[in-house]
């Protein structure tokens, strides 16, 4: 079975971007809630969100398979209401990458938002700005570098996702084959040369994303 390296690289990049986009708003919102508010169940939510970081990815994948399978709670809903299958499609790849990247995004968003001195927000409120305006004009711009860096980091994590993806999406060339799944598949078939090519693309993408994330986190704001 032939694997088109550039098609795989393109699919991996866009599905990782889509997965990251999917979690961006809820990730920043949850990061804000964790950074700025005290509420009952906060520790429980923090723990649950962090689970994919420490659980075996295939275990997370199994949970997703049971949830989004045709007989799963969410899978049945998607099929009956929206008329779409999730498992063994690109949507499953996107969901797997999103779930695995979510804890990274929430943690970096929380750190970035905690880095904004609440005094600025308080002063903005005394100047007549309501909570939404304060968030959009003060909190978000002041945390922007950290948030963008966190988003890039989440994207980099999504690029390399393997365990959860293989469980919930399988390896279907042209449909669910990502870089990491394809490398594994090619090594199994002793087609190391082609695997090395995909490895090079994979390293380049991951290096670029991590480098960008580091640059954003270290860059000083303009005077």
């Amino acid at each position, binding site marked *: 079975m032939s694997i088109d390296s550039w098609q795989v690289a393109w699919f991996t990049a866009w599905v990782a971007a889509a997965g990251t986009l999917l979690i961006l708003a809820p990730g920043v919102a949850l990061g804000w809630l964790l950074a700025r508010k005290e509420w009952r169940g906060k520790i429980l939510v923090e723990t649950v969100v962090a689970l994919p970081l420490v659980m075996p990815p295939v275990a997370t994948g199994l949970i997703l398979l049971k949830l989004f399978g045709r007989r799963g709670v969410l899978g049945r809903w998607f099929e009956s209401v929206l008329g779409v299958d999730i498992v063994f499609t690109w949507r499953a790849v996107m969901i797997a990458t999103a779930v695995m990247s979510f804890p990274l995004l929430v943690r970096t968003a929380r750190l970035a938002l905690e880095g904004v001195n609440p*005094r*600025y927000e*308080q002063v903005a*409120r*005394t*100047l007549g*700005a309501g909570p939404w305006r304060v968030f959009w*004009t003060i909190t978000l711009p002041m945390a922007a570098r950290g948030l963008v860096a966190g988003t890039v980091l989440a994207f980099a994590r999504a690029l390399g996702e393997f365990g959860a993806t293989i469980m919930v999406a399988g390896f279907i060339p042209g449909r669910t084959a990502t870089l990491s799944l394809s490398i594994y598949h090619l090594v199994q078939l002793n087609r190391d040369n082609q695997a090395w090519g995909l490895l090079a693309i994979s390293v380049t993408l991951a290096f670029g994303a991590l480098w960008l994330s580091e640059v954003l986190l270290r860059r000083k704001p*303009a*005077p």
Partner: protein
Amino acid sequence: MNLEIAQLRLPLSAFALEVDARLGARITGVFGASGSGKTSLLEVIAGLRRPAAGRIVLDDAVLSDATRGAFLAAERRQIGYVPQDDALFPHLNVRQNLCYSHLADKKGHRPEITYEHVVHVLDIAGLSERRVASLSGGERQRVAFGRAVLASPRLLLLDEPLAGLDAELKQRVIPYLLTMRDEFGIPMLYVSHNADEIVALCDDVLLLERGRCVRRGTCAELFAVSDAPHYVLKPT
């Protein structure tokens, strides 16, 4: 201006802030040692902290009333607040900082308080396109005053605004505060632990100790010249 603080209670870590006072002077000083509850009192008046008990009324508007569960949000109080660290927004330039309240809400803005008038009075017209990180300490404070004034507050709370400035710079900034008082007629609550600043600016003074108002009077009643031109608190 008539600010009524009735049976106010706010538990703090070491003691409770408990104040009962009616304030009406053009500039009222809140004097006390560090950690006596001065900043907490301003935060409660500004609506940044919710008191456990008591009532605060500014002119005819009830700002908070714990017994009725009433609490007006900070953004609806029209009370300006300049903290010790000035809190100029670092991602905005001077003009954007000054105009922040105009972008937020134009309701209640006094037409005579214009951008041009404020920057003229505070002598900051030439700073408008500068980044706030490039301003000196005195310039930062004047921009912070201007930003608060441009929101047309009914009351301006100043929390040790000169604490970070050296003696010479303080002497240069104090006249701007007096001009602000005279030009815009905005009543102020001025917090400081520096007797000289209080005497230079305030008509009436509250002395706070461990959260309680222990003395109240005019500057002449509360302070005496020590080593001229410096003032100290008179013994009780």
